[in-house]
């Protein structure tokens, strides 16, 4: 299965934009945010033009249509990640999904003496909420270190859980910096062997856009997703959870839509997942996300995965040959997703980014919201090229040319 990238690109108008005269735009920043295909824009536009209204309990047609679009988005996303729709809570982004877990699970269930386990390759979204909770509650946080080539050090992890005090694990499925695809099953087994009650949250932000994901097979408690990296709109994400787990939990955000009954003294909560969705939800965004799921399903996630793996390998191999370039993370594309961080000897990532931009190449430079990982790598920042279904080998030359130019321009 190979993707017909030329055809796919037609669905993404910005790829035909010439930011600089006569320079093709090469978008290599999908790990920050993917482009959005036309069918997604049309789905949102259609809602706004023809079915605009609020959801739930409206007795008129527009409100029924809006409700169907919104709940349809939930059903579609659930099917896409192979989960029960009752466990899909819409949030504004993955960060809110993780905070929901930090507030409604961690802060309400853990006590001093409990240990939270995390890893050294987490995005701040999957690190800071637990650090913050740990400070407030007096919990301990431990971090799984990394191997030379940027994978989780499972032997070290085994030592970290040995005392049986680890009650909660937060780990990333695919790293946004190193690209590493983590072995969730191995980590989960290891943590649950030491403590069968341990609860597991996986940050699937970078995984869901890039490969088939089955929440059921992963058999974890929580899984965080974001729309804007998977061809969907901004402003929507989701916490995917085991419904039983949600049922045990107190709510997080409270207000309209999430209550069953309320008086001035007391309140009873609605059923899950509504219990966790307070206020007017992201209606257009859910319609857009549904269209994004349809779009990706139409192409086929297995095909996306294969395309990316092959392309990532080509990029890594070629970049590694450029003088002065060091690629971080695993070398074997099978072990990773499409985010490729690299350093150029003697040139600051900011300067690399500026040079690449002048050649129409969009990459991200900085710490990628993963400061602890930067520290581990011994760098202050990296440049990162990240690939998606609209990228192809023709995007490699402009990248390499830009890197070579940056090196000759900036090297002292």
């Amino acid at each position, binding site marked *: 299965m190979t993707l017909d990238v030329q055809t796919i690109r037609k669905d993404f108008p910005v790829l035909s934009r010439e930011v600089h005269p006569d320079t093709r735009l090469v978008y290599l920043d999908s790990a920050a945010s993917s482009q959005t295909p036309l069918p997604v824009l049309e789905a949102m536009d259609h809602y706004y033009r023809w079915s605009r209204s609020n959801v739930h*309990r*409206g*007795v*008129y*047609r527009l*409100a*029924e249509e809006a*409700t*169907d679009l919104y709940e349809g988005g939930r059903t579609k996303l659930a099917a896409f990640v192979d989960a029960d729709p009752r466990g899909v809570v819409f949030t504004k982004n993955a960060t809110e999904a993780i905070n929901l877990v930090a507030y409604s699970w961690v802060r309400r269930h853990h006590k001093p003496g409990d240990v939270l386990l995390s890893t050294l390759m987490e995005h701040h979204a999957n690190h800071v909420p637990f650090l913050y909770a740990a400070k407030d509650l007096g919990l301990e946080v431990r971090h799984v270190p990394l191997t030379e080539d940027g994978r989780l050090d499972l032997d070290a992890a085994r030592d970290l859980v040995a005392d049986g005090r680890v009650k909660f694990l937060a780990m990333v499925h695919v790293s946004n910096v190193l690209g590493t695809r983590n072995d969730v099953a191995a980590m989960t087994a290891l943590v649950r062997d030491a403590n069968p009650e341990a609860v597991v949250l996986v940050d699937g932000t970078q995984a869901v856009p890039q490969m088939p994901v089955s929440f059921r097979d992963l058999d974890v408690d929580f899984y965080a997703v974001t729309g804007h990296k998977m061809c969907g709109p901004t402003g929507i994400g989701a916490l995917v959870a085991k419904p039983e787990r949600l049922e045990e939990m107190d709510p997080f955000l409270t207000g309209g839509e999430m209550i*069953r*009954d*309320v008086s001035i003294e007391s309140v*009873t909560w*609605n*059923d899950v997942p509504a219990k966790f969705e307070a206020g007017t939800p992201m209606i257009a965004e859910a319609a857009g996300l549904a269209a994004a799921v349809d779009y990706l399903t139409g192409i086929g996630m297995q095909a996306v995965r294969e395309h990316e793996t092959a392309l990532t390998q080509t990029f890594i191999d070629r970049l590694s040959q450029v003088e002065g370039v060091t690629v971080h993370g695993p070398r074997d594309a099978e072990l990773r997703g499409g985010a490729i961080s690299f350093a150029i000897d003697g040139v600051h990532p900011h300067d690399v980014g500026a040079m690449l931009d002048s050649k129409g190449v969009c990459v991200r430079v900085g710490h990628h919201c993963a400061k602890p990982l930067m520290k581990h790598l011994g760098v202050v920042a990296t440049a990162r090229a990240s690939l998606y279904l609209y990228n192809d080998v023709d995007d490699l030359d402009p990248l390499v040319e830009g890197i070579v130019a940056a090196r000759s321009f900036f090297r002292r």
Partner: protein
Amino acid sequence: MSMDDLYQEIILDHYRKPKNRAPALQDEDVHVHHSNPLCGDEMDLRIRVADDKVDGLVFDGEGCSISQASASAMTQAVIGRDLKDALDLAEDFRRMMHGDEPARPDDLLDGIAFQGVAKFPVRVKCALLGWMAVRDAIETYQSGANAHTVTHDDDGGAA
């Protein structure tokens, strides 16, 4: 929403002249109170059991035409049935409200007139209120209790 799809003549008849609507039932075995705070529907349902059959059944309460009419039609379909049989019929009605074809259309009597309500998701829970109350009343009886209060905003999946 077409008024005719939703408000069939049979439904309006039950709404205007409800059957078995009463505030009390002699020798009642169980009294349940169901409310749907989101619609503001309130329903009191009383049941008397004899020989493991629904011997007496009345409802009372406040709610929209659909909820009142459906409860009225329900009482006619359920009175005289075996408890187990009545539970089965309630389940049949519930599934019909979710779009399935009813397995026992004849036994539902006028209840069948509510099939069209399945197309109006917001009204489904109105049509279900009486049926879910009777289900709860029977189960309460079977559990040996004599009263139960349920607050719900759902499709009968929870109690």
